């Protein structure tokens, strides 16, 4: 929670950026980038998420490191769940269709 008021222009700017990125991600899905389609889609999604978190949710202006730590820790824990599970799924031998 920030104490100072942010300009509405900033919010409109972020909004425009989010709209552009949405259109981009939808259009680029139709372009054949091989295996990179997924990567590009996730990168764009992460950019959009960062814009919302940093600016709409005021994390960029947060007075305390604690807020950022909570976010980072939660994402880190989610990645723990995903990546350590992949340690199993990535190394099994059975083939699936």
């Amino acid at each position: 929670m920030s104490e100072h008021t942010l300009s509405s222009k900033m919010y409109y700017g972020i909004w425009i950026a989010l709209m552009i990125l949405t259109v981009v991600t939808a259009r680029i899905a139709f372009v054949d980038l091989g295996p990179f389609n997924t990567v590009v889609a996730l990168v764009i999604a992460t950019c959009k998420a960062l814009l919302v978190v940093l600016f709409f949710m005021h994390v960029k202006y947060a007075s305390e490191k604690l807020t950022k730590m909570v976010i980072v820790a939660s994402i880190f824990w989610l990645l723990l769940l995903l990546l350590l599970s992949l340690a199993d799924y990535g190394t099994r031998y059975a083939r699936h269709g």
Partner: protein
Amino acid sequence: MATAVITPERENYLNQEYGIRSWLLTVDHKRIALLYLISITFFFFIGGFFALLIRLELLTPAGDLVQADTYNKLFTMHGMVMVFFFLIPSIPAVLGNFLVPLMIGAKDLAFPRINLLSWYLYIIAGVMMLHCIVTGGVDTGWTFYTPFSTAFSNTKVVEAGLSIFVAGFSSILTGLNFVVTIHRMRAPGMTWSRLPLFIWAHYATSIIQLLGTPVLAITLVLVVFERVFHLGIFDPTRGGDPLLFQHLFWFYSHPAVYIMILPAMGVVAEIVPCFSRKRIFGYKAIALSSIAIAVFGFLVWAHHMFVAGMSLYSALIFSALSYLVAVPSAIKVFNWTATMYKGSISFSTPMLYAFGFIGLFTMGGLTGLFLAALGIDVHVTDTYFVIAHFHYIMVGGAVMGYLGGMHFWWPKISGRLYPEWLGKFAALIVFLGFNLTFFPQFILGYMGMPRRYWQYPPEFQVLNVLSTAGSTILAVGYVLPMVYFLWSMRYGKLADDNPWGAAGLEWQTTSPPPTFNFDKEPEVTWEAYNYDQIPDPAAEEVPVER
């Protein structure tokens, strides 16, 4: 003599308001702690009842007391009730709720109404579970393994799953309250390095509750969906992976065991210095080891799945990580022992429980290392060795920690002293009953007796009979404290502010405390465990009763 003088009773949180509404609508963390105390004690005896039925059946090799399906329900209900309705809430919801604000010098938790909500969620979950039990119960094991739970079991899986979902929400809210309270509500001068280790333990526990329980919640939701809509996510005949369920389930349920043990370790860290009249040895190491256990505890879950069908490569990784998680626990045991070295030891009831905890937890923990070794695990997994292992930690550890804490803080909670000789006697009974119940199970498991079987080969009978005998002694040991605590509330000697001469802010206020905990906001200028400055009530003529 206090009993001859008529002293008007001071206003405290117990007598400030009377009537059922003042209890059911309270937002006082101390009253909520007592509400939890009554509820979890109730469920402890329900879970214990199932345990006694299990032990009765296992007196004889033949399956002659109940049918196999019923036996499956017995161990399932025992596990579900004990884990979710007793062990997980016990210390945090009773002792944590009562003590966290007092220990940090606050008037209440950060969110008192959410605290009350968390108790109501627990009650709703409990009613759902009771309904599930009386209408037939569940037979899947507390582990809900798929596809049996999703496709084949004919029991009330959905209701049990939803009940635990609600109980999980209760647990999450408690954890959330503690984290915010510890960050935001510490009294002036109460820096992080002056916090009692009980607080560090509950902080670490709360992190686990916040990060782990939601995964259990979504897992149960998926099981319910699968069962109701016949989805196939966990059904191997339709492309689903039963191991996906197990990964999701154990991602929570392994850290859950640290939810169950960390608070007990926090209790021990308060009891040992007090009855050694010494500052705790290695404060920083113990505090950081609590955080380390919370973090490392999330890295080891698949050691429950070594033989379930996951890849050997990942089994190796999880095995190695499981050895890592034992290190911070060992650090704690060394530090508690070092605290006692050259201390002035008194064998009070809380200290007896602390001794029991240290010894039995160590045994349980070391047998965990046996299980973490792949080569050994292949032989003893799903045998009574595992059952003995986790009961040593859960019962020999967590329950003894809980009982030790209840005895230690009983004067603060109730304003009364329990009869000390009875306390020591019951502690001894618990210790003897516990070991007689569970030590034979190590041997049984090593000899090959499988778990969750309702009949067994005759050569295992002698050890089973010993185990059942132990369980009846243990039951007596558990009933005794309930009786004399209740007795003490009416007839017990009145307690002084600090009958044990213990360090900590909670002992700086009256027994029982006033509703807002302190008459004046405390300001802390001393380090934790300043036993060099506190007189030993056993050594001097410090009045214990008033």
